[in-house]
């Protein structure tokens, strides 16, 4: 799990003087979250943004395991989904009986569900870390998702369960019919969850989780039981995942077995990792990006799953610290003044790769046109140019661009980058 060690949270405790410095990112995030719906007003955009909020909580909870404690889980959706089901049953119960729980508190039922199942499954799976934990989580994930079609009473079969978010009362007299109200509810809960998860990192438990991740023997030596630390982290993480599930059913008013499924588990892993598991904000960025791509890319291109796959492979290969990690690295380099000399080199290298990427996109789009379109002879439009993909010229051009860009990168840009890096090391 060496990647998770690349960067742990900065350790300074906030003193009164640095309070502003430590709260401005939070205030900025809140401001952005409040303003966004004024720009993107369609109800589809609102749903997407609500999903982003849900996914942020979910990905942050996942990172409590992977980033903080070094536990790689393939079945985190179990807690998200089961929490969601618990909340959905509560919502339906409220609708049927008029029980007085306000909608704002329904996500807490989800959190309780996550907590409950976290206790059950955590007790059998956290005794070991590493591959054993990962494989147990995979097994539990598969078992729960397979059971979802067997226990139709709880899971509602393949049709899932529906609820009506307008049925419960509201603490503040808000009508939760419109998507905008739900969006603000999600924002409020996401903020609370994010602050709690952030503060948990600063507690002794958070420190011990890091220690258990990096060196369990030493952690045991100083008197902490690594199994206990892993268990507590696991249960807390499951609780937040359940909270996310509870919010999810309010946003969607439907829950199906796919919420406990392996794909959902994979998505949260990818979100957290793409964003960067070494920095707090990493999973947040990853969650936003993944939800956006999932929702929008598919309506832009047929090849969206291929791009999705290539993105992950690309990030893993070239930015294993995640996008946020990469950003922080660059920011740190910029601040410490190391940047100046290599700025040009980096920009140059990035430029050549970008040109290669454009060529690659052209090749993929043309290939999809040829293989997928019922009439490949029909002209296609790409990068504002309309052409016939059955001609050789566009292909020669696209492959030529890729080859040329990569050649420039390998022969010229990369040596230049290395030289710049070498100079830096020489100075140090």
């Amino acid at each position, binding site marked *: *799990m*060496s*990647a*998770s060690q690349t960067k742990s949270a900065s350790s300074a405790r906030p003193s009164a003087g640095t309070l502003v410095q430590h709260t401005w990112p939070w205030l900025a995030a809140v401001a952005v979250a409040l303003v966004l719906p004024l720009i993107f007003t369609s109800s589809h955009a609102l749903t997407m943004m609500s999903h982003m909020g849900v996914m942020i909580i979910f990905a942050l909870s996942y990172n409590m395991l*992977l980033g903080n404690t070094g536990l*790689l889980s393939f079945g985190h959706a179990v807690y998200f989904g089961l929490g969601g089901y618990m909340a959905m049953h509560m919502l339906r119960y409220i609708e049927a009986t008029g029980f007085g729980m306000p909608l704002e508190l329904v996500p807490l039922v989800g959190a309780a569900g996550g907590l409950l199942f976290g206790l059950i499954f955590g007790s*059998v799976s956290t*005794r*070991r870390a*590493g*591959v*054993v934990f*990962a*494989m*147990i989580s*995979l*097994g*539990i994930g*598969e*078992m729960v998702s*397979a*059971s979802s079609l*067997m*226990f139709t*009473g709880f899971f509602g079969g393949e049709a899932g369960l529906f609820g009506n978010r307008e049925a419960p009362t509201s603490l503040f007299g808000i009508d939760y019919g419109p998507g905008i109200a739900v969006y603000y509810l999600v924002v409020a809960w996401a903020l609370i969850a994010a602050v709690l998860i952030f503060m948990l990192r600063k507690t002794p438990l958070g420190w011990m989780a890091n220690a258990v991740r990096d060196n369990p023997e030493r952690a045991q030596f100083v008197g902490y039981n690594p199994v206990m630390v892993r268990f507590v982290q696991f249960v807390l993480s499951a609780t937040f995942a359940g909270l996310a599930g509870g919010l999810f059913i309010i946003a969607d008013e439907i829950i199906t077995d796919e919420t406990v499924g*392996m794909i959902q588990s*994979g998505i949260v*892993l*990818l979100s957290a*990792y793409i964003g960067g598991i070494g920095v707090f904000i990493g999973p947040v960025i990853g969650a936003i990006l993944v939800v956006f791509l999932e929702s929008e890319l598919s309506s832009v291109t047929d*090849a969206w*799953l*291929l791009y*999705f*796959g*290539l*993105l*992950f*492979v690309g990030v*893993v*290969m070239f930015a*294993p610290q995640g996008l946020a990690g990469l950003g922080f690295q660059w920011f740190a380099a910029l601040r410490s003044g190391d940047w100046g000399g290599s700025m040009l080199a980096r920009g140059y290298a990035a430029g050549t790769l970008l040109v290669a990427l454009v060529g690659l996109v052209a090749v993929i789009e043309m*290939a*999809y046109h040829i*293989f*997928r379109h019922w009439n490949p002879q029909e002209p296609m439009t790409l990068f504002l140019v309309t052409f016939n993909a059955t001609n050789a010229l566009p292909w020669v051009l696209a492959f030529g661009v890729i080859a040329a860009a990569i050649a420039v990168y390998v022969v010229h840009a990369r040596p230049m980058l290395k030289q710049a890096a070498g100079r830096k090391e020489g100075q140090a």
Partner: protein
Amino acid sequence: MLETITFSLLNGLLYGMLLFMLSSGLTLIFGMMGVLNFAHASFYMLGAYFAYTMGLYTGFWVALFLAPVIVGLLGAVVERYGLRQVHQHGHVPELLFTFGLAYVIEELVRLFWGNVPMNYRVPEALDFPLFSLFGTNYPAFRVFVLVVAIAMFVGLYLLLKRTRAGLIIQASLSRPDMVSALGHNVPQVFMWVFAFGTGLAALGGVVGGIQLVTEPGMAFMMGPIVFVVVVVGGLGSIQGALIASILIGVLQTFALSVDWSLANVGILFGYAVPPDSIFATLWYMDSTRIAPILPYLLLVLMLIFRPRGLMGKRES
């Protein structure tokens, strides 16, 4: 009853052997390099597709040998230019790399071969019922699959135990640093083991694609169960993988062939759960409906009580 048992054993054995072909390569890769290769089943799929397409031109028998070789070389390229790059960052990035790769391979297969299942059929030479038991025919191709799988197991076993290459591989499994110190190029060993492992998966695909179905979803369907075999069998153990494969194959087939539920066991002890209690669904659930979760139950129980698997020498 005898009929049920015979057929369950035969069918379970066959399914188990297919599983073994798929997972034997992964147990080497996983045991040796610690790589949770999520794309392993994708190479199995590529094997099936390559063999199908090649078979149109060269016939089945050439494709049977050629497709695994080509897929193996592809595996070598993936290891050399992909995994090795990622390896330095640790196991999680490695895993995610193979995760992304599985997506990419599936999409490319859909792109080139389309979404519809391929018409990949039993070669004519093997398309006849070999024998008949209790009035049910047993097709020759099924026996052929068994033969290929057994040959593969024997070959692998001899290779690992009796040859110099096998010694180096086994040594790299447990002590890569020592092997490196002895002057062997460990990364290169890794590359060839990866190529070999993916080639084995592809061989499984060549026959599995006929026995099951050759379609773009086949990798996704087989993906997780391969891990179960590898973990239950024990890391790096070919014998373990064989036993685990057959165990899972027979277990699942038996669960499907007999009507059985916890209630049947309860009756033996004179106990029954009232039908309206919350446990009733579980209590009266047919074994046929429980069958798909059995491998995962086995996985979890094995990891809780014996994390090194049936035949593994060390924990992962």
